[in-house]
């Protein structure tokens, strides 16, 4: 690959001064997949730090297993296709980290390995690699193991922890609220001192990372803002009409994967729509489906499924909102 780039560079140097290129016109120097993925990893640092602080060895183990399995899956599958290795663009590492952070803390090592291989193999390589995938690879991996290992990844995976603070071991806030009516303090949800998947518990860490992503333009502001607004509106209306005095509202706004998912998973540029209106449509869909499934389906932690479903709708949304070209009618 470097040889090709070098040869392109040399023709550009010797070729005519005016040359026509198709979009995207990358003006900023050093921008590209590698830089964007590095930005995502930097943005994930506060989330990883929070999860390592809260879940100790569980978080370290899980992040290492999932990242390694994603990287090795990428190497193996790319080799099988006879292409040059693209591992140094960090995209597989990002998939691995997000996958690890979206899974429950305690699970056998092989579940992480299977999730990583499903994410990279079924989620990405099978469609032709980065940029061609239809579903978010990390969410394909997660959904695959959640459905395949329902027993292992059920309530026990959140509550059978040892060597961590008692506060982070138990039923997740949304499950506890839905099935036993126990509610969690708002401040604990804010700092992340609650049971849940590794990366989703700490609201403050997700928001710091997410704002960095938006500042670096690696993620668009519309999608997270609109998802959070949709969830806030629906949860607020339900709360008001049923008289839960705010508890239902803040559980759904800060609990589950709302913040982590809105900033890090829904903003994946490959699997979300391209235009402004399309992004709004996508984000409202994610928020709406999340609330519907949280309230009525058997999976209270269903943010990830809502993203997968809206990934399936993304090609349609892109069809509906084709932008008018400059000077077009």
């Amino acid at each position, binding site marked *: 690959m470097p040889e090709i780039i070098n040869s392109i560079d040399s023709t550009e140097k010797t070729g005519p001064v005016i040359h026509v290129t198709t979009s995207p016109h990358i003006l900023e120097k050093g921008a590209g997949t590698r830089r964007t993925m590095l930005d995502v990893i930097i943005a994930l640092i506060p989330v990883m730090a929070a999860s390592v602080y809260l879940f100790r060895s569980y978080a370290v183990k899980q992040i290492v297993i999932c990242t390694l399995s994603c990287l090795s899956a990428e190497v193996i599958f790319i080799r099988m296709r006879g292409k040059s290795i693209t591992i140094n663009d960090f995209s597989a590492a990002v998939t691995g980290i997000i996958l690890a952070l979206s899974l429950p803390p305690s699970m056998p090592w092989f579940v992480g390995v299977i999730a990583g291989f499903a994410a990279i193999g079924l989620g990405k390589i099978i469609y032709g690699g980065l940029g061609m995938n239809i579903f978010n690879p990390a969410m394909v991996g997660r959904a695959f193991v959640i459905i395949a290992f329902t027993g292992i990844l059920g309530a026990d995976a959140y509550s059978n922890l040892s060597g961590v603070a008692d506060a982070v071991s138990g039923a997740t806030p949304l499950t506890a609220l839905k099935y036993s009516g126990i509610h969690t303090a708002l401040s604990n949800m804010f700092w992340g001192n609650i049971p849940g998947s590794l990366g989703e518990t700490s609201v403050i860490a997700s928001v710091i990372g997410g704002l960095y992503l938006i500042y670096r333009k690696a993620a668009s502001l519309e999608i997270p803002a609109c998802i959070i607004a949709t969830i806030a509106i629906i949860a607020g209306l339900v709360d008001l009409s049923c008289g839960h005095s705010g508890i239902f509202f803040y559980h759904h706004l800060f609990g589950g994967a709302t913040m982590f998912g809105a900033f890090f998973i829904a903003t994946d540029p490959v699997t979300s729509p391209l235009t402004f209106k399309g992004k709004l449509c996508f984000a409202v869909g994610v928020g709406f489906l999340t609330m519907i499934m949280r309230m009525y389906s058997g999976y209270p932690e269903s943010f990830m499924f809502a993203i997968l479903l809206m990934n399936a709708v993304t090609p349609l949304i892109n*069809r509906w909102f084709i932008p008018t070209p400059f000077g077009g009618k």
Partner: protein
Amino acid sequence: MGDYFLLAISCIFVNNILLAQYLGNCPFLGVSKKMETATGMATAVIFVLVLAGAITWALSHYILKPFDLEYLQTLSFILVIASLVSFVELFLKKSIPALYSGLGIFLPLITTNCAVMGVCLINIKEEYNFLETLVSSFTYPAGFGLALVLYAGLRERILLARVPKPLQDTAIGLVGAGMMSLAFMAFKGMA
């Protein structure tokens, strides 16, 4: 009223005929390469199934059951569906020739579309009353149409992807369908 609404939700999402019950996969793979044929197929199935559901329900309750002829259920249902499809085919050929030629072989294939037969049999098996039969005969194919249209969008996008050679076309289509089914699993436990 609420019961009918729940039944509709369950038929469209929770027990989606394609993605949760895996019926009617041949037209799902066959006509989903282009959006126009997909929407055409979806409307044709809705049209046929509402008629077929109502007629087979009446047949089962007023002829087969009173005369103890339930062992003829499969045979008579096939007959009703086949003649209905021929009727729809004649109608489309005369009034919308473009759609007729677009659907091509797949319109006669509704005759053997297991989704149509399946819904008719589900209606009887679940002992729906006539109104419930109408609701389910409309919402099952609506769910079929929803999945088909979403899937056609996906396949149009897959066309642009550099899919590995052994997996092109139907194979990658089936993988995509499996993933949609995985996403629809999240509705389990609803309604």
